[in-house]
């Protein structure tokens, strides 16, 4: 049995070759695409656990492709790691905002990439969270962790896998300030802990999906310099 199905999207044939060789050796099932359009066709046809997506692609570009993948109604939503040569905070936030779960700067070391891939496709929830199937918030908002969906009255909004994991972790630990590092390690993996911008982007996206007024959150609260706190409805 394969460790997971990965789609590599990069216009450089050498990078595709190196990654294919490395990932196949690690037991992953790998296919690749040269352009964003080709990648989207492939994702329509098949299920992938993870997409390694270069930002700088010919044609529509990686960020747009990421948004499109997130907008697709795939039966299984793939995790997305974006790859890019730019490493400013702005570029990272842009990639995460587009729906990526993680962000790796080129050139990267193979062990680092492998660790990130493992973290991204880790979907086993921890014991305390497993029991949580859904939560009901005020204002007619229901979150279903099984189908990764938020129902606001009669409207349905999808959660990305990382958003879903993050919210589930919050829901499993209500009324407690969870430090940044703990959240990052619980959701992304043991190698994480300093990527505060990840939390900023993801918490903001969650607020947009579950809060009535994302600028004045009622459920997902910020404890400055420490972390975040989930306050369930009374």
């Amino acid at each position, binding site marked *: 049995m394969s460790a997971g199905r990965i789609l590599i999207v990069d216009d450089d044939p050498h990078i595709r070759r190196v*990654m294919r060789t*490395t990932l196949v050796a690690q037991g992953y099932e790998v296919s690749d695409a040269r352009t964003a359009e080709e990648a989207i066709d492939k994702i329509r046809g098949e299920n992938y656990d993870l997409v390694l997506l270069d930002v700088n692609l010919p044609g529509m570009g990686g960020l747009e492709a990421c948004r499109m993948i997130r907008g697709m109604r795939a039966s299984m939503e793939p995790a997305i790691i974006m790859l890019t*040569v730019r490493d400013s*905070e702005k570029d990272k936030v842009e990639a995460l905002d587009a729906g990526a779960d993680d962000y790796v700067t*080129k050139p990267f070391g193979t062990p680092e990439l492998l660790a990130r891939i493992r973290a991204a496709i880790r979907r086993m929830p921890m014991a305390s969270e497993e029991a949580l199937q859904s939560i009901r918030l005020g204002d007619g908002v229901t979150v279903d962790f099984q189908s990764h969906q938020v129902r606001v009255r009669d409207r349905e909004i999808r959660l990305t896998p990382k958003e879903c994991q993050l919210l589930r972790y919050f829901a499993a630990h209500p009324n407690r300030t969870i430090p940044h590092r703990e959240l990052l390690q619980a959701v992304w993996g043991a190698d994480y802990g300093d990527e505060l911008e990840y939390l900023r982007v993801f918490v903001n996206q969650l607020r947009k999906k579950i809060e009535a007024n994302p600028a004045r959150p009622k459920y997902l609260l910020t404890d400055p310099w420490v972390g975040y706190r989930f306050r369930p409805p009374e």
Partner: protein
Amino acid sequence: MDGSGQFAKRAGVAAIRLAAAIAATAAITFFCFRLIAVNATTAGFCYLVEVLIVATVWGLMEAVVTSIAAMLCFNFFFFPPVGTLTVADSRNWVALFAFLATSLIAGQLSAYAKRRTREAVDRQEEMERLYALSRAILQTDPREVPARQIASQIVETFKLPGVALDDHAHGEIHCAGSEHLADLERVLRKGPDSFIPPGPATPIVVSPVRLGGEEIGALAMWDSNLSETALQSVSNLAAIGLDRARAQQVTAQAEAARQSQELKSTLMDALAHEFKTPLTSIKAAATALLSQAVPKLPEHQELLAIIDEDADRLSRLVTEAIQMARIEGGTLQLNRGLYAPAVLISAALRDMRHRTEGRRVEVQIPENLPLVFVDAGLVQLALRQVIDNSLKFSSPDGSLTIAARPEEGSVLITVADEGPGIPERELERIFEKFYRSPGHHRVAGTGMGLTVAREILRAHGGNIVVKNLPGAGSEFCLVLGAAPPENL
């Protein structure tokens, strides 16, 4: 020559007019006396009308001559006793007075009207010329010297023999025209006293060229018969022309600089991508081999490590070059946020784990340091450059001390090593671009690291200074402004 020719011509015209006036008087006399034989009163009115017409059409002098001729004819042919000149008759004086008064008043009025007309025509002509000049000045060719173009446009528009324009900004005098240029230039250079005019009035007119009260040049014209207003307008136009040319030049330079920076920035981005793409496959391949659990020969392990490290180094060089280009081009955008200095230092050190391995690095950061409002990525880059520099230029067994302390609205981060210190004359030079200390040519590096670091700190309104420590070693001090309270 010109003057006497014109005088002869004018005298000729006057003689013809006088002859014509006398002939007209004779014709009226003949008509009234012989053809219809009118009475004295009618004849008097006819003469009066003639004087009036002559005065209006030709002028005072012709009218006076006509008045005298008419008075004589009137007296001789119409006053009884007819056929004699009876000067004593008082009616004679009345007639002469009437004719003279008419000629004077009508002549004055007509001369005044003519003068007004001529003035109006002249003013209109001046206005048209000024307008033509303003158009010409607005259409100056930006590739040529503006002052020279303006001078030659004044010459052309007002048909002057010579014009000189002094452009104070460039300290140059530009002449146009064909005559008296040396005199004009001397007057502008040395003042009006340096020119001794040939006649009682000087033919040179000098006017300052002012822009908003500031004198930006001077204009000298030979033989200009411009009115005071027109002269003022010409010098104003010259001022506008000079100023416009200067503004155009500044804009063109700024635009050229901006385009070149933009090109550089685009080129750098493209270059970064082109370099980093192959580096990515090299590094990914090398690290994949390095991390394989299969046992390797030690020399293979070593060679793979070299490939990996140098891929990192090339990548760093490309990043630094891009940062440098951005900083130089002023396109560096600070993405500021509030950070604790301790977080910045530990993040920088974490990125340098492989460089600090096996070295003693002490970090001394007190509690309760103020936060700083900075671009974290850039400040960490600056910190890495400074730490990297200290690691390179100190002995491998010496320790490195990184400390931070607050000071008067700033946070100081110091990086001190136990190396040999920096020669006094090099203390400032080490921040120069591509500067490599003469004694350390074997140390790997680009000579850009500290330049980048200083530029980053300066972009934040801070700075980096370096000094030698009393015992041994040197200390770099990064000064960052503490976050103002409103940002907290």
